[in-house]
């Protein structure tokens, strides 16, 4: 504790500051993040995030593993959106090895990636609501997420960490009633989203809690290299799916959701969340189109290479994850193990902006700002 003078609008205040440790065990740090905060009464004056409580040495580990064995470890990066994680790596290896995956595989990948995006945003909104004290929307969203996970389990065999996108194809073909199930999921997701909009996002208390809280201006967001809903919430229309279309995303009609100042201010917590809600709707649209266009016949495993040995070279391949841009920089030396695998973790980059935007707010706001950035510690610490 130290004594400081603080300049306020109403004059100089002499007060004692309190240092408080939030985490690593705290109900709402989304894992094991530790925030060292300096409090002036209830007002946060300084935030120092301490990371490394979940450091699993992912990048070095991958140098020990053969290419197919890397995929289970990539799953454990951002464990909420495993399908999306696998994609940039698999895409990069395919590009190096010059494999053209079949149409059907591309469509299935798009559908699963978008379903996982919905699941991720459901968790993000749900935990954000729980940080604000609303427990019920959390359960409604998790109830729907269970349907998505069920479809994933029926397809890949696992509920959370799928190991499903393989170099050159997919591990398993989709179950026979896949299309109906997916359409059914979309219907339920839309119904629940509408309900959550009324129960949580439209609630006056929640709106008061989130608008004008943690305002992230667009230039700061760009300077900190934020991506995903955090960047789009600040009004920057940047989505890798539109900006640098990879896979077959140029075939679909969807909008890039950005924050507006309809209810809040551009770049506040409310906008970051409403972007997530809207993106769920856009994902539903993409899935509908993909299901309509998807070829029915085709072997998902026909393009599997016998041995995954990319030629000597290097590549950076990135994709639009639910949380933002996830990229892998891969150096291959011609062997069956990566020489170097460097990831550009979304959450880590997004978390860097936290100390910038939460000074001067209250403790309760700090929790909400952290929730609105939607980090996953597996990706932050790697």
């Amino acid at each position: 504790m130290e004594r400081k003078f603080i300049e306020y609008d109403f004059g100089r205040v002499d007060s004692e500051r309190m240092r408080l440790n939030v985490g690593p065990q705290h109900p709402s740090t989304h894992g094991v993040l530790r925030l060292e905060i300096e409090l002036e009464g209830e007002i946060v004056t300084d935030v120092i995030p301490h990371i490394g409580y979940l450091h699993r040495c992912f990048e070095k580990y991958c140098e020990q593993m053969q290419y197919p064995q890397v995929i289970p470890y990539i799953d454990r990066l951002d464990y909420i959106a495993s399908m999306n994680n696998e994609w940039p790596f698999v895409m990069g290896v395919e590009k190096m090895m010059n494999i053209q995956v079949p149409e059907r595989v591309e469509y299935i990948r798009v559908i699963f990636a978008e379903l996982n995006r919905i699941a991720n945003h459901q968790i993000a909104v749900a935990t954000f609501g729980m940080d604000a004290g609303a427990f019920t929307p959390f359960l409604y969203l998790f109830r729907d997420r269970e349907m998505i996970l069920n479809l994933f389990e029926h397809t890949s065999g696992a509920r959370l960490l799928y190991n499903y996108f393989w170099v050159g194809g997919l591990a398993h073909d989709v179950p026979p009633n896949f299309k109906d199930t997916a359409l059914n999921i979309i219907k339920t997701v839309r119904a629940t989203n509408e309900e959550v909009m009324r129960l949580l996002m439209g609630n006056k208390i929640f709106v008061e809690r989130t608008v004008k809280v943690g305002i992230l201006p667009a230039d700061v967001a760009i300077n900190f290299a934020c991506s995903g809903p955090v960047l789009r919430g600040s009004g920057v229309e940047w989505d890798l799916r539109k900006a640098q279309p990879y896979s077959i995303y140029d075939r679909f009609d969807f909008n890039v959701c950005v924050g507006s100042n309809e209810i809040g201010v551009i770049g506040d917590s409310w906008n970051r969340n409403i972007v997530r809600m809207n993106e769920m709707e856009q994902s539903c649209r993409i899935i509908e189109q993909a299901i309509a266009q998807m070829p029915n016949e085709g072997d998902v495993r026909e393009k599997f290479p016998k041995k995954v040995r990319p030629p000597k070279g290097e590549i950076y391949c990135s994709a639009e994850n639910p949380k933002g841009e996830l990229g892998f920089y891969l150096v291959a030396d011609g062997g069956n193990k990566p020489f170097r695998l460097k990831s550009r973790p979304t959450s880590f980059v997004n978390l860097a902006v936290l100390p910038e935007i939460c000074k001067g707010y209250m403790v309760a706001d700090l929790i909400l700002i952290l929730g609105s950035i939607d980090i996953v510690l597996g990706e932050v610490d790697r």
Partner: protein
Amino acid sequence: MGFLNRLDDPFNAEGIILGKVEDLLNWGRARSDWYLSFGLACCAIEFMAVNASHFDLMRFGCIPRPSPRQADFIIISGTVTMKMAERIITLYEQMAEPKYVLSMGSCANSGGPYWEHGYHVLKGIDRVIPVDVYVPGCPPKPEAFLDGIVKLQKKINQQAIFKKRAKLAEEEKIIVND
């Protein structure tokens, strides 16, 4: 046939009354497990799914408590790094007796995927705190986790409260005899 066995020696401290009291106390402990709401890694997400409507952990009387003082058991849900292990020991020590530990998933059981080269990962949470139930899986299915809870409750139900030392000695004797 616990009841009948106790009838044999009603004057012993393990007589009917104390036996029944012990059953009641164990029943209370087993049926009202409050857990520390605390997540580490991937398993924590699956653990949240266990809490959600489809599986509903509250059916077993498990209610989340944010403070370790009020929690009865702690779920080690994910990879425990060396840095985090110290904190987990502190958390465990902060909990009030009787306390239990449930190790969820491969990482907590024995380091999981990181057991071989992981200089940074604790190879099994049982190296620092005593574990009651190990739930395998990476991450475990919610049903598998619920099975772990059932097993934990079964274990609590058979605990000795009175004459603990004598019973422990007896158990040890059995182990020695084996």
